[in-house]
């Protein structure tokens, strides 16, 4: 079973993924199969409650699947024998509500994981943090606390915090949904930049412009299933699924 998941181009492979929350009657995920290749920018869209967040959160096991398998870099994430903490170090995640650590400065937010997890020495982590905040245009904020930042700035720092671990994939769960409209652009710009540099990304978003511009593939989910999966061109210009057409007519 392991050999077939060692295709060096495939970063994440999902087979028959199911999630059934205990206190809920609906199946949040109902048999998801998908492959994510290195360098892919996969955008996941779909109506609210269709299972997009659950799918994303299963990828790094924040949500434990009730069925199916997930492999990351050839190692099965859903196999309890594998060290999930080690694997998560290579999977950055960005949340809708930022979740910066309010009791730590921006610098500490960024350097905490690399230093404490023994990935970098303190000096190296500090240099990396400085370089990263520079890249997202916030060099003067490095020694402030999160509470002094705007939403857009918080989210850029949250992205940087995940990047500091040098992940092989970045997972985004509606990263701009909690932002005031005028701040959405600055966050999307950072994400576009990342995509252009070749970062593998899985992005749940309602920003169709972002999907059209940088996605290599778009996935449409409904009722815990993938109903359509295609390149953005085919996806938006020639939607062949009735539900997708009706969804797109509402959001575009």
């Amino acid at each position, binding site marked *: 079973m392991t050999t077939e998941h060692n295709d060096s181009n495939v970063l994440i492979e999902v087979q028959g993924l199911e999630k059934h929350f205990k206190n809920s009657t609906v199946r949040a995920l109902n048999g998801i199969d998908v492959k994510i290749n290195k360098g892919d920018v996969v955008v996941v869209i779909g109506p609210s409650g269709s299972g997009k967040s659950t799918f994303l959160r299963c990828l790094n096991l924040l949500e434990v699947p009730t069925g199916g398998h997930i492999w990351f870099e050839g190692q099965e994430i859903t196999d309890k024998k594998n060290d999930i903490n080690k694997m998560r170090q290579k999977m950055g995640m960005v949340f809708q509500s930022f*979740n910066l650590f*309010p*009791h730590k400065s921006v610098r500490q937010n960024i350097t905490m994981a690399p230093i404490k997890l023994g990935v970098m020495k303190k000096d190296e982590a500090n240099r990396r943090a400085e370089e990263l905040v520079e890249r997202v245009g916030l060099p003067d904020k490095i020694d402030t606390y999160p509470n002094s930042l705007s939403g857009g700035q918080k989210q850029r720092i949250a992205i940087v915090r995940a990047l500091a671990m040098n992940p092989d994939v970045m997972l985004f769960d509606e990263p701009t949904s909690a932002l005031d409209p005028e701040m959405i652009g600055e966050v999307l710009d950072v994400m576009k930049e990342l995509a252009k540099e070749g970062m593998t990304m899985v992005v749940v978003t309602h920003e169709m412009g972002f999907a059209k511009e940088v996605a290599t593939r778009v996935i449409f989910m409904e009722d815990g299933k993938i109903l359509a999966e295609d390149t953005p061109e085919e996806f938006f210009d020639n939607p062949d699924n009735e539900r997708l057409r009706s969804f797109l007519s509402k959001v575009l």
Partner: protein
Amino acid sequence: MTEWFAHQKALFFLNLIDDDRWRYLADGLVLTLEITFFALILGLTIGIIIAIIRATHDNTYDTMAPGFGKIVLKVLNIISKVYLTVIRGTPVVVQLLIMYYIIFATSNNKLIVAVLAFGINSGAYVAEIVRSGIMSIDKGQMEAGRSLGFNYVQTMTGIIIPQAFKNVLPALANEFITLLKETAVSGYIALQDLTKGAYIIIGRTYSAFMPLIAIALVYLVLVMFFTWLVGRLERRLRSSDH
């Protein structure tokens, strides 16, 4: 009037100066602070551990996969609940006496007995305070920590507990002050703490006013001092947020 003053002065000398009787209070104060300090450390340690067990159980038990870990968590949670119920349901003096006469009947180290009794007692109150602090932290904090690759304990100790602590610092300070005052019953196991010091003086001089007012003042000054200290600490912690 002058007669009254003269009388008070005589009482003061009799109770505190003659035969160096103030020493009972000074030595008693040192012992009171010793018991309080070590009991505080023990109480915080027990309290934080129990709080983590209880919060972990409440947050994760239902979604945990069946297995050995789940059983261990269940057992630890039951033990914690029994501890909390028993300790908070009985008077601290009774706990102190049980510790001294039953559990440590063969040991002579009264200081250790007192520290254990008061520490174990305080731990129960600290546990509930810290637990409420942990529960007040947004669950996104745990998820962010875990998503970076920290394990559960690292996330708890490095991210959740420091924030929880800050939120409940006033309540913890109250618990510390309660603990300081509760050590006044140490005399029950013949420890010469501050209160017992006054008691001894009364036994010698047969006058109660001066010794009792003296220790009341000492307790009051201590409590006011610690209240002020915690207030400063709180302001410093809060300013780091903004």
